[in-house]
């Protein structure tokens, strides 16, 4: 299949399926489930087709409606966008499998499946669009679905914390559309490739201001310091599959947008680069410090999202080939591992009814499989070798030292130890100990349906596969970084 078909299908298919799914409301749930699984699996296949076509470091594009790029919208996939699509599709279908198996998580709620598919379409569009305004639309599609999903079920607590998410999200969207207006005012373009050319004509100071504004806009989405505060407040209260998907995917769409816009539109780095490195160091630190202070699985994990976003921004802020390659690798690793850990947290909550560390204990003895499913990604998250997190962290630290950024690189290493510490906190609280003495235990009578465990196990397997395939994966990340830094291939593919 050629990319000309695959790219539009990746957006159009889930969107169309969402409509079908909506029409199936009131019919047996199995129909909605089938539609969702078939479509999400197809997205996985399509995304692999796309990644195969850009594997050598090329860029493929297609004009939507065959309209000339001067007035129309172009979808394009470069190695970064393609790998993000592959990993995202993987998250989308595995989390769907998990949600179907879960009892407590509102998957049976009327609009769960249509909303989920809309979200999938928005995510795919975000990674594919080569148009700044269309990126805004894609974000909105993704976000509006997420607004409804996060409040699904609607307990009082959930709505209040959901409000934080929605309000800050809308604030960021307002700033985004403002930024697009300003970019258009300064250049007269919204096509990203055309902008890459036009932005060179804008005076340096204004360019820096626009770059920083877009950084703040996407920084809110990506939850970098000091714009992250909404995240640890709103994620833990949402239904587990929703939290897992959001944790793995949505903030990384923000990171993707930061990488895309900063490398394509503001490639010289300069003052933005310094800002990025300072923010990266603060994000890594504040996130992990917050995690240490928590006593609940999902809350610990939520703070870690923040901390790890810092690593990605760190790699980007170096503006070197190795740095950006490291950042890309880190994003890919993080999406898988983070989602997995939230899925494990969800299983614990589903089985024990709580994620509070001081109430749980001894799960290693009553649920040994779950213990392994937690331990492997947890070690990976903390950057312990030989897991994927180590390879990603190592490549970042190497490029940081090579760029002589001693402080931020040192911070990135030290944060690893604190991450490990907070992971042992979960291990110690939930998995070690005497199950008989815990307030609630994951006893054998409270088991979860097989799909939840299977979905989690699939993701753990994938993250282990990353270890084996780390060599080719890193080389691909390097090609992605090279496309981002050289810009020419992307601009040509979009404007051709």
């Amino acid at each position: 299949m050629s990319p000309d078909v695959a790219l539009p299908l990746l957006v159009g298919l889930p969107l169309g399926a969402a409509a079908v799914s909506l029409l199936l409301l009131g019919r047996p749930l199995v129909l909605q489930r089938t539609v969702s699984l078939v479509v999400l699996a197809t997205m996985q296949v399509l995304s692999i087709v796309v990644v195969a076509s850009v594997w050598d470091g090329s860029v493929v594009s297609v004009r939507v409606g065959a309209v000339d790029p001067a007035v129309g919208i172009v979808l394009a996939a470069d190695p970064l966008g393609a790998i993000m699509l592959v990993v995202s599709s993987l998250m989308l279908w595995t989390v769907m499998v998990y949600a179907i198996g879960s009892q407590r998580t509102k998957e049976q709620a009327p609009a769960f499946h249509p909303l989920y598919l809309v979200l999938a379409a928005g995510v795919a569009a975000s990674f594919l669009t080569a148009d700044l305004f269309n990126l805004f639309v894609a974000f909105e599609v993704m976000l509006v679905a997420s607004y409804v999903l996060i409040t699904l079920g609607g307990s009082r607590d959930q709505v209040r914390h959901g409000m934080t998410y929605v309000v800050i999200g809308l604030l960021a969207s307002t700033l985004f559309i403002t930024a697009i207006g300003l970019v258009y005012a300064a250049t007269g373009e919204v096509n990203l490739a055309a902008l890459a050319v036009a932005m060179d004509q804008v005076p340096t100071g204004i360019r820096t201001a626009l770059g920083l504004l877009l950084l703040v806009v996407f920084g809110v989405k990506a939850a970098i310091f000091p714009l992250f505060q909404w995240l640890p407040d709103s994620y833990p209260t949402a239904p587990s599959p929703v939290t897992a998907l959001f944790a793995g995917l949505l903030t990384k769409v923000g990171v993707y947008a930061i990488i895309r816009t900063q490398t394509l539109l503001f490639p010289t780095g300069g003052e933005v680069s310094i800002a990025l490195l300072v923010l990266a160091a603060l994000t890594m630190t504040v996130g992990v410090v917050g995690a240490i202070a928590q006593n609940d699985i999902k809350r610990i994990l939520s703070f870690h999202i923040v901390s790890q976003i810092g690593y990605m921004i760190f790699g980007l802020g170096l503006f070197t080939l190795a740095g950006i390659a490291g950042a890309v690798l880190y994003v890919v690793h993080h999406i898988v591992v983070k989602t997995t850990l939230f899925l494990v947290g969800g299983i614990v909550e589903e089985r024990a009814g709580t994620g509070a560390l001081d109430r749980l204990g001894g799960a290693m003895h009553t649920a040994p499989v779950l213990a392994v499913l937690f331990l492997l990604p947890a070690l990976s998250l903390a950057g312990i070798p030989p897991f994927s997190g180590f390879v990603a962290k190592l490549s970042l630290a190497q490029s940081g030292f090579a760029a002589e950024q001693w402080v931020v690189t040192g911070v990135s290493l030290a944060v690893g130890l604190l991450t490990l510490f907070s992971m042992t906190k979960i291990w110690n609280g939930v998995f070690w100990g005497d199950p008989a003495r815990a307030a609630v235990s994951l006893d054998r009578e409270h088991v979860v349906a097989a799909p939840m465990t299977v979905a989690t196990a699939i993701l753990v397997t994938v993250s282990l596969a990353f270890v084996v395939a780390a060599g080719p994966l890193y080389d691909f990340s390097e090609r992605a970084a090279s496309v981002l830094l050289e810009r020419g291939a992307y601009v040509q593919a979009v404007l051709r």
Partner: protein
Amino acid sequence: MAVVAVLVLHGLLALAAGLSGRRLGRRVLLLVACGPLAAVVLLVAHALGLLGSGALATSVSWVPSIGLQFDLVLDGFGILFWWLIAGIGLLVMVYATRYFAPRDDLGLFASMLVLFAGAMLLLTSTDNVLVLFVAWELTSITSYLLIGFDDHRAEARASALQALLVTGAGGLALLGGLLLVAGSAGTTSLTGILVVAPTDPAAQAGFALVVLGAATKSAQVPVHFWLPGAMSAPTPVSAYLHSATMVKAGIYVLARFAPAIGPVVGWWAPVVVGLGGVTMLLGGWRALRATDLKELLAYGTVSQLGFIVLLVGHGDPELVHAGATLLLAHALFKATLFLAVGVIDHQAGTRDLRRLTGIARRMPTTALALLVAAASMAGVIPLFGFIAKEAALESTLHVGFGGPAMTAVVVVGSVLTAAYALRLVWGSLATKGPDEVDDDVVEPREVARPAPGFEGPAVVLTILTVAFGVWVAPADALVVGATTALVGPEAADIHLRLWHGFGLPLLLSSVALVGGWVVWRWPGSVRRVAVVTARVPDMEDVYRGSLRGLLAWADRITAVVQPGSLPLYGAVVLSTVLLLPGVAVLRNLALPEGLVVAESGLQVAITAIVVGAAIGAARVRRRLSAVLLLGAVGYGMAVLFVVQGAPDLALTQLLVETLSLAMFVLVLRRLPERFESTPWRFGRPLRVVVSLGTGIFVAVFTLVAAAANRQGTAAADFLERSLPEGGGRNVVNVILTDFRALDTLGEITVLVVAAIGIALMVRTPVEPDERGEVGP
């Protein structure tokens, strides 16, 4: 390839043990023993010359672009370590089958143990410093899980965490150090780095970090305290990880670096040797006061590790040779002592020397093994420990600068060693008088005799300790191989001898033994000094204090950055806008020429209404009023669009405004009627500043951005192409339905989803939250 096969086998066995643990019971420990057994077979085959030249060197690629590849080379020093890891590993695994009662999670234990063995083998056979780090961290993690194996005991969990954090921090330093050094040398190959021996500031910082990392792993002062804590682990783990192998990983790294780096980096030798010396003395001192036999052994290990660091850290060939000898001797006698104490603990139910008496008669075999091993540790002729000590004294006496000081430290350290060896033998084996034991003493007749298989491994090691003393050739071959691998072929002439003749070393050895007996026999002096040293802060207290401090500090920081206040979060976002792009705009302020403020009075009037409604929305206390005033802002904007000649835009604005108003009202059902009052005094002024600032920022930025435009806009393209390509004269329509139809599709989706969201909120009854409250 043989090396790879052995390593892979360890990984596979770890997997198999994890999966089949429950089915195999205690036999799972025998299953994993196949790993070390294979390594021993390899070593024997190599020693007999049965292997080809390429058998011990292989390269397997992993992530070559960042210098990560398994360059496996097993040289003489590696072979010495492999013998310790595999030989003692094999014995310990056999021993563990008797040590443990049947339990469910032995599979996990066996899995971690063989994984650890594999990691140690990898650590000592790779030439790639990054892979060395990989193995290093694997040993830390497996050690964590093994120390905490009895996880129902809070103390075991805390000790495991302590060991992990301390060695983890060391691992961090090691990684940073290796990256800096490798960066300076331009290679991740260990031999490559040693050939280049970089000395630039980054590399020097790197070496300092490497020393730090090695010191934590090998329990050097002041980070030695984790090792006595690690004694919460089951005794097989203490014997294997925390005396024979893992704690020597730091020594392994120091020994690799010292011969090449010691001569070119001025501070290296004094710092590393000093570290070892202080550790040797402090460890020995603390061992004299321990009452728990394992704690005594742990401090003894700290002391001996310091001794080895002192020897290998210098880099001088003769010292390195003595260090390698001591490494071997220590592994043999200390593992024996742990295994023997484990037997006593297992049979008597305690390892407190105040509660033990008459053990020697109950288990003479174990007692003999313990006695011989302790004698070897103290340096009694003709045991292998004596040979090592002689070699050490011989070499320190030959060192020029600092030699006398090193000799003095070794002699004093040896006095302490002899003293705690006596304390150990007396404490564990002797039949004591009633005033020498506690009231809850374990009567000898209550102590069951150990099974023969349980005592076997200690006996094997004891035989080696004796054998290497009287027949020194095999040990000599091993040690010479190790030394030449470290310092080069010139070390091939240094050999081990049992009898050096009547010289200064022998005299000093004797002094140490007599001194040790004196110190042990008259403990009053120990007590008097102990009163003084008790005032020195204990590093374990420092660790606990900093951990508590870290947690408290994390709590405070988190409370500050995460107060849970939505208005504050919004203010932070907007303040960031003002701080980052805002300042950038201010620094580049260039407004367009010929600025028109307003085109008509109507514009001014509507704007005034919009601004008024906006201010009102910010000031009212009732949520509903605020929402309505916000609506007024939106509708006002719609009118402004009409005036400006954009009816379709106005229509859209009206629709959106109505929809969001409806959504707001639905959400408000679940929120209190009024806004909560701001807790801080400066809240309101700050909000005013932030909102006004944001408004001004956007307005000014718009003007500045427009002024910066030198290329026109895409509007011309749209106007030109609308009719020929889109087939319509209404440009806006063509854009919405043709040119940028994807945007429109997306926006329609957004509206549909928003509508679904509203419908769901209207239809779902409000569920009670955790506290059982139901909203209004």
